[in-house]
C-alpha cells in the first residue's frame, strides 16, 4: 500500500504499484514507500522534491519538462571528495542491489540533477557524468512535508595545496625525526634562525649609510658598526621566529623554518636572541657611539615588540615595518658622523618610501596565506589602499632623490642618473595599480630588489666631497707644523 505523499505546492501524485520505487536519477537513490510519484522535482527551496521516474509509467522526465505548471530548478550538488573516491561504479552498485529489492533502470534524465543542502557544506552530485553512486536514503516522515535525506559519510575537510600539511615537497617533511640537537649543523641553524639573507641586506643598507655620510671613513668604526648591526638584526629575526612558530607552520613559504621543524628548541632560540642582542648593542655602544646603540636598541624593540604582534592586529604594521627598514641607514650615518644630519633623514626617507612598493607587491600574491594565517595585511583588508600607497611612494622617490643635491648630499648627477630608475619604478607601480594582478605585482617586486642597490651605489658614487673632510685634514697638518716649529 503506497500512501499518497503530497508536497507543498506540487501536483497530486499518482500511485504506483510497487512497494519501493527507485528514483531513476543517475544516482541510486533508495526512495522509500512514501515517495512514489513521478512528478516530484528537485527544488532549491527548503522543501526538496525528488524526481522520480517509474519505467512503467510512460510519463517521462522529458515530458515533465514540457509541463507549464511545473516549477523546476536545477541545483548543483557535489559529493565530498572522500565519498566520491570510495564509491564504486554506478552500474556495479545497481547490479549488486544491496539495499533494495528491485533493480533500477538507467536514468532517462537528460539534464543534470543535483541536491544542495542549505546551510551546510554538504552537496550531493547526481550528475550522470560523474560515476558515483553511494546510495542516498531519502525519507519522508509521515505527515510532514520535508524530505529527510541521510547521507551517511564522514565529512572530511577538503584542503588544497596552500595548506603545507597537504603540500609535501620532500620526504623530510613526512618522517618522524629525533629532535636531539645536531651540533655539526648548528652554524647552519643559526644562520637560518637569524634570516641571514635579510640580515645581510640590512647590513648593506647600514654600510651604505656609513659610506654616504660626509665625515671621514674610519675602518675600525665601520667594521664595528657592521658587526653590531648584524648581531642586532640576528637577534631581532630570532625573536620574530620564536613568536611566530604556529603561524609559520601555516604558510608554505615559512613551513621549513628551524623552530617549526624542531631543529632547535624555543628556549635555544630565545637564548640565542638574548645573547646576540646584548652583544650587538654592546658593540655598538662601546665601539661606535651611544646614539647608534640607542637607534639599534629602538629598532630591535620596534621590530620584535611592535611590528611582530601588530601583524595580527592592524594593517598599520606595514608602516611600522617601513620605519624598521629605514633606521639601519640612519645607524650607519650616525656611526660615521655622530649626529643625525638632514642627510640621514633623507636617506631614511628614501628607504622608508622604498619599503612600500617592495612589500605591497610581495604581499599581493600571498593573500590566501595571509587570510588563512590571520595576518592583517593591506593587500587583503584594503587592496585599493595597498596599490595606491605603493604607487604614491614610488612616485615620491623622484622628489626625494631631487632633494639630495639640495641638502649638499650628492651632486646633481645623482638626480640625472636616478630619474630613469625612479621613472621605471613608478611605471611598474602604475601598472600594478591599474591591473592589480600577480604578474604586475611580481614585476614590481623584482624591480625593487634591483632599484635600491642601484640607487645606493649611485648615491655613494655621486657623493659630494665637502669641506668637512678637507677641514679635518687641514687642522691636522696645522698642528704638526706648529709642533715641529716649537
Amino acid at each position: 500500500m503506497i500512501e499518497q505523499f503530497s508536497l507543498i505546492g506540487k501536483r497530486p501524485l499518482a500511485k504506483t504499484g510497487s512497494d519501493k520505487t527507485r528514483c531513476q536519477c543517475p544516482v541510486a537513490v533508495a526512495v522509500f514507500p512514501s515517495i512514489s510519484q513521478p512528478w516530484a522535482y528537485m527544488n532549491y527551496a527548503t522543501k526538496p522534491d525528488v524526481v522520480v521516474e517509474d519505467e512503467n509509467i510512460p510519463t517521462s522526465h522529458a515530458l515533465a519538462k514540457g509541463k507549464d505548471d511545473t516549477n523546476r530548478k536545477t541545483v548543483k550538488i557535489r559529493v565530498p571528495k572522500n565519498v566520491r573516491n570510495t564509491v564504486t561504479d554506478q552500474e556495479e552498485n545497481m547490479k549488486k542491489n544491496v539495499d533494495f529489492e528491485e533493480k533500477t533502470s538507467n536514468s532517462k534524465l537528460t539534464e543534470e540533477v543535483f541536491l544542495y543542502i542549505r546551510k551546510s557544506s554538504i552537496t550531493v552530485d547526481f550528475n550522470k557524468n560523474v560515476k558515483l553512486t553511494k546510495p542516498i536514503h531519502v525519507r519522508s516522515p509521515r505527515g510532514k512535508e520535508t524530505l529527510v535525506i541521510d547521507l551517511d559519510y564522514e565529512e572530511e575537510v577538503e584542503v588544497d595545496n596552500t595548506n603545507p600539511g597537504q603540500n609535501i615537497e620532500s620526504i623530510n617533511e613526512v618522517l618522524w625525526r629525533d629532535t636531539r640537537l645536531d651540533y655539526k649543523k648548528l652554524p647552519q641553524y643559526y644562520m637560518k634562525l637569524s634570516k641571514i639573507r635579510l640580515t645581510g641586506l640590512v647590513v648593506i643598507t647600514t654600510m651604505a649609510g656609513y659610506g654616504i655620510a660626509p665625515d671621514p671613513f674610519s675602518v675600525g668604526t665601520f667594521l664595528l658598526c657592521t658587526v653590531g648591526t648584524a648581531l642586532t638584526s640576528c637577534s631581532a629575526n630570532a625573536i620574530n621566529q620564536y613568536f611566530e612558530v604556529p603561524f609559520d607552520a601555516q604558510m608554505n613559504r615559512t613551513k621549513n623554518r628551524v623552530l617549526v621543524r624542531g631543529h632547535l628548541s624555543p628556549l635555544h632560540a630565545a637564548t640565542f636572541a638574548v645573547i646576540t642582542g646584548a652583544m650587538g648593542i654592546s658593540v655598538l655602544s662601546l665601539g661606535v657611539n651611544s646614539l647608534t646603540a640607542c637607534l639599534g636598541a629602538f629598532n630591535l624593540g620596534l621590530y620584535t615588540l611592535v611590528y611582530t604582534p601588530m601583524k595580527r592586529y592592524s594593517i598599520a604594521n606595514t608602516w611600522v615595518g617601513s620605519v624598521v627598514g629605514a633606521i639601519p641607514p640612519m645607524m650607519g650615518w650616525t656611526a660615521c658622523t655622530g649626529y643625525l644630519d638632514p642627510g640621514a633623514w633623507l636617506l631614511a626617507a628614501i628607504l622608508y618610501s622604498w619599503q612600500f612598493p617592495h612589500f605591497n607587491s610581495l604581499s599581493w600574491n600571498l593573500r590566501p596565506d595571509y587570510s588563512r594565517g590571520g595576518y592583517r595585511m593591506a593587500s587583503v583588508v584594503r587592496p585599493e589602499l595597498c596599490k595606491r600607497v605603493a604607487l604614491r611612494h614610488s612616485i615620491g622617490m623622484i622628489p626625494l632623490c631631487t632633494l639630495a643635491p639640495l641638502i649638499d648630499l650628492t651632486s646633481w648627477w645623482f638626480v640625472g642618473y636616478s630619474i630613469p630608475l625612479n621613472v621605471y619604478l613608478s611605471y611598474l607601480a602604475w601598472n600594478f595599480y591599474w591591473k592589480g594582478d600577480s604578474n604586475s605585482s611580481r614585476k614590481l617586486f623584482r624591480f625593487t630588489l634591483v632599484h635600491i642597490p642601484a640607487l645606493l651605489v649611485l648615491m655613494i658614487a655621486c657623493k659630494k666631497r665637502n669641506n668637512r673632510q678637507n677641514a679635518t685634514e687641514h687642522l691636522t697638518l696645522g698642528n704638526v707644523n706648529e709642533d715641529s716649529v716649537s
Partner: protein
Amino acid sequence: MAAPLTKCNCVSVCATYITRRKFSLSQYHSKKTTVHVESLPPEHVETDWIGPADKVSNIRQMKLFIPPDESSLERDYRLKREVVQKWHHEFWTAHNKRFFTLKEKYIQEKLAEKGEAADDINKVTPEELSVFYKKFLDDNYPTHIQYNKDWYKKNISLLWPALKVNFYRLFARRKESAKNKR
C-alpha cells in the same frame, strides 16, 4: 626507511607506508593519481621526536620521551608542552576547516551566479576570491586576537620551566644519579 634516519636508534625505526588515492575527478587532483604518504611514530623513543605536519592543522605532533627517573619538574614541563601542542592542533584544525569549507561554499556560490559548471574553479577570479579573504579575516578577527594573546602567554610561560629543566638535566640529575648509586 632507515636511510634518512641516520641518528636514530635502529630499534625504533618508524614505519612508513604509501597508499595510493583512488582516481578522483575532483578539481583539486584533476585526472592524476595522488601519492599519499603517511608516517607512524616510533614505538619507543629515547629522546623527543617530532612528526610531520598534520594535513589540516599543519601542526607537528610530538612524541615526548618519559625518562624512568623523571622528576616532577620534568613531568610538569612535559605535560605543559603536550597541552600547548594539543591546543594548537585543535585551534588550527577548527580554523582551517572553517576556512576551506567557507571558501568552497563561496566558490560554488560565485560559480552558480555566473552559471558555470561546479568543477571549474578557475573561473572564479582572484579579485572575487579576495573579497572572500577579506571577509574571512574580518569575521575571524576576535578569534585571532584571543589566540594570539593566549599563544604569547603560553610561549613565554614555557621558557622558565624549560630553563629549569635544562639546568636540572645538566647539573642536578648527575648528582641525583651519583647519590642513588652510592
